[in-house]
């Protein structure tokens, strides 16, 4: 049930954001795990292939989308429906875009902690907790202004 992790990396496979909501399998190394996802996604044909990887592991499906040079990936439970998570990703990117104003990879690099702040205002326990862009932006600019 729910999102197991959120990942964001660029075309070269450099990680920009990583958030785990569930423990990886025993002995699974985070770095090896991430790079296997990168390898898989970067080899895909974005015109002719879907945004879903059905059985990445026994318990995980991937839903991803590429925006300019950045991949946004969510690992979800194999029983979950893929489509809504694609909307989750898109909403996240839209909020980032509105928050930073024309967000680009550099914004996420230099302000990674603000990107995390955005993520945490949206996703808790692997579930989306707020969907109104207006509410989110108001909250984010308030938090950002706190000392």
């Amino acid at each position, binding site marked *: 049930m729910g999102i197991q992790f959120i990942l964001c990396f660029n075309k070269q496979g450099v990680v920009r954001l990583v958030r785990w909501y569930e423990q990886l399998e025993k002995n699974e190394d985070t770095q090896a795990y991430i790079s296997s996802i990168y390898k898989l996604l970067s080899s895909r044909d974005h015109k002719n292939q879907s945004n879903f990887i059905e059985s990445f592991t026994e318990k995980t499906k991937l839903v991803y989308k590429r*925006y300019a040079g950045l991949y946004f990936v969510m690992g979800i439970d194999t029983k979950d429906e893929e489509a809504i998570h694609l909307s989750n990703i898109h909403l996240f990117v839209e909020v980032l875009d509105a928050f930073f104003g024309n967000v680009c990879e550099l914004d996420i*690099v230099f302000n990674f902690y603000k990107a995390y702040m955005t993520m945490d205002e949206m996703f808790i326990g692997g579930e989306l907790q707020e969907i109104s862009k207006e509410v989110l932006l108001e909250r984010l600019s308030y938090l950002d202004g706190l000392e």
Partner: protein
Amino acid sequence: MENTKSFLSNNSGVANSASLIKGLQLFIADLRLSTQIDDQEKRIHSELIKIKQQFESSGKQKDRNSKVSGYQRKKNIAKLAYIYITSNTNKLDDILFGLKEIIILLKSKVYSEKFMAYMTLEMLFQHESVVEKIESDIIQQLLIDFESTNDDHVALALNFIGIVAGLKNNLALNNELVDEVFNIIRSPTSSLPLKKRTSLSFLNLLKTNPTLLTNNLQRQDLWIQRIIALFDDQKNYRLMVSVLPLLTYIASYIDTTSCTRLVPQLVQTLYDCIMAGTSSTVNSQLSKEYMFANVPNPWLITKIVSLLNILIVSDNEVNSDVPGALYASNIGDDVLGKLRTSVSKVIELTTRETHDQMEKMVQNTILFSLINFSSKLDTTGTATINSIRTLCTLLVSPEVNIRFLTLDSLIKICTIRGKIAIDEVCVAKNLTLIIKLMNYEKDASLVRKIVDLLYVLTNTENIKIIVNQLIKYPMKSKINTDTKLKRDIAIKVSVLTERYATDINWFLEISLKLLSILSNSASQEELIWERLCQIIVNNPQLHKLACEEIIEYMSTNNTSESIVKAGAFILGEYANLISDKYAIGDLFNLFSDKYFLVSNETRAMILTTILKLYRFAPELGSVVIKFYQLELNSLDIELQTRSYEYLKIVQLSKMNNDSNLLEFLLAPIPPFNSKTNPLLKRLGNVGNSTPTSAMPRPLSRSTSNLSHQISSPTSTTSNFKPIPPASRSRSSTTFSKNQFEFDNTSTMTDSLHTKSTNVVNVNNNNASYMNQVLISDWQTSFSRMLSFKQGNLYTSPFLKIMFRLAPFSSTTTTNLTNPDNPYKITISLIFLNQSEWPINGLNTELIPYKTQGNPEYIITDTSAITSNTILPQKRVEQSFSITIRRPFDANTAPIMITRYTCGGSVNKVTLKLGISTLSPILTASKQINGRSSILTLSDFVSRWRQLRENMDKEGECQLNHLILKGTKNIETVKNVLNRIGFDIVDQTNIPSTIFLSTIIHTKSDGNYGCLIKINKNQLANDANGNSFDIICKTTSTGLLSKYIVDTLQYILSL
């Protein structure tokens, strides 16, 4: 460069540049300048040393200037976090020295500092090495932050739990922490944003440790009620989005029953949301909240649907693993109607043109979510057919994601709905389309889905078309078919041909073709040729044909190893059958040619084959001996041993000129009797359920067809399907028999649950009935309801519940004097808000004593409460019916739980409803029983005697010295009994005695006569009241008279 370009449209952001951390920005910029990996490593290394030094010196300085040191610490920790991220989590060990400083930062009272500490820890908590070191420090700080009056700090602590509690750590085991989190859900003063966060944080704790609730039943009940109470405010969709996943988890893993009563409410919200989202005029605030990107809010919809998916099971899934879920046929018509309208509205919506990417995505999200769900509810099949038609039009969508989801959806529906869905997908046009799609699709994962779909679709009619296409695919495909897909196709084809082929020659042809195109490596393929050999052995009419076909395949240059293996076995067994066409010597040459092209395993088989060939043609003796001699020095111990042994056997039989030994050793293989096709295990999960139950079984495949084959196994007609190994066919007969019984039970359960509505549970035991704790003075209202047609059921300062009992009147008959169902009554309830505040989240749950195993009474026609909210001084209503199937103990009358919130308090009222076997008499108007039927005293006496003669003491119940308090005399008792509807013998001869008669109606057991004698005990006048003796006789040998006396006791004691 691409990374300076925005992902999306133009926007001016709200991020505050004043909150930047300069040192951090410089460090990041620096790192980005060094293009060489070595340079970056150096830069990181020197920065780490610098940070370490600063941490050490700040420790010594004793916080001379805490503001500066807090900022410094935040900056340094942010750098560590950046290093962790940018090294793809590889540099974890290099930054661990900072953990202590993170804990110090966590204690800061400055938000941005506290945030940075929490954020960094949230990332690092995936690593057990981090958790071990600092977990207890963090729990301490979390407890402090939960107590904070600053909501922002509480929110940070909640976030932390919401993010990391699902990882491996002990947060969910800490009771103090759990209580703190739950307190926020419970408290009426918590703010909305905090409540939203909390319900998801609590979910995370619960997922990790479900015993939080399950270990303590009382807590479970109470906490779940509190959580459900969050749902009461139906207008607050934002809170709902957060609470729904929590409820879904509870419904799936902890307590389904307590959530089922939300079904009408959930459906209403879903319906409102879709209606608002699809209507062209959007104005009201409410409809605006239901919208997203110009379409209905997809999050609300998918979350509601996934909860409904748990709460409602399709009528087909009799053995659902969710106890307490509702059967689809138990859902009320109004609820079902709303669901159906929602589905068709959404289908309509997808035809709307849109160019907005988000909008399109959302449209489809909703569509698939609802279509997948709706097939569960469909009783007539029309909705399924409509859904399938819509889906089939989406198969040609240019969007690959939509095609993916469409296929997924089709597989699900066909698996759940079976024949009706499959037939619709299989119309020629669609099938051609799907096959075309398979050949042109460029995404391997989609091809896999198409293969799965075709597998589900296959039946005896289309088997040839589908299998021929599947088998051609690996050669035809546009993409590089991976071996996994190839293998998958091979196994599926093999299973399908065995299951559905009706033409045995075709079966053999396909199976061999399949073997011929298999690659030679995978071990799974062993199973395919082995299975084929088993089937050939068990079907004598195939022996000869198989030999001929195999020889043809083996004569080509590139024979696959599977064919050689099958050939080695089959030709070894049956070569004599074709010796008129092929000389055994030629076969020997064929195998000795192949021998050097195959693996050792196959070689070992060929060695055996050679021996078998020798049995048919002893004249080959010398070449066979030579052949074995070649392998005597083989490095492979198996080949060497076999050659040696076989050589000895050949030599022995040659020497003695005696073939008996050979004949004995190589006796014909007996039929195989492996029980199931081992290939089924390799299928993976096509559809959701286990392979056997997921298999679409063609209805036409009758047992008679099968037994016909068994009775004539030697038949030479080619128009038979292959007979699988003997005992398997037996087991498949029993299977169909089981299937038949299984269907029987399902219809039985269906009829038991016919049309009863929302809250009749599928619970097997009475645990939920027995575990209810009734309110303290439940007996008063219970007795009142047993003896009056209407009255008060419950009164509190907030809520008053009134009841009214009436004979059931179906719409078809208005003839009250002769009702169709004298054993059925209708109960109407009125809920009145007596307080000054609105009552929210009002709902009721009816718990019958039992629902399965031939229940005594059943609750049906439950209408939804007219509204879940009651404004002050207003009322709402609900009604339901009870059918009395056989006499029952009034103590097992249904329990009703009413839940509501009012002015911040959460209330639960558990009552037993006063329904007994006598209730129909009470509700019937006096005329029905008919004055004319009243007995005279002499009639009564003669019947009484008759009963005593026929039944003796059976069916009699006697109760002596029933003390009725107050001044109840014989006249008042008489009045009460008259009001209840008993026929009272009009007599004055015998003083202080009442003679009663009546007819008891039940649905299953029919009618019973009933005679009662009550007399006032003159001698035993008690100080507290009068004493009565009751004797009841009935025509039932069961406990009916006892039930009646018990009920009278309740009634008269009132």
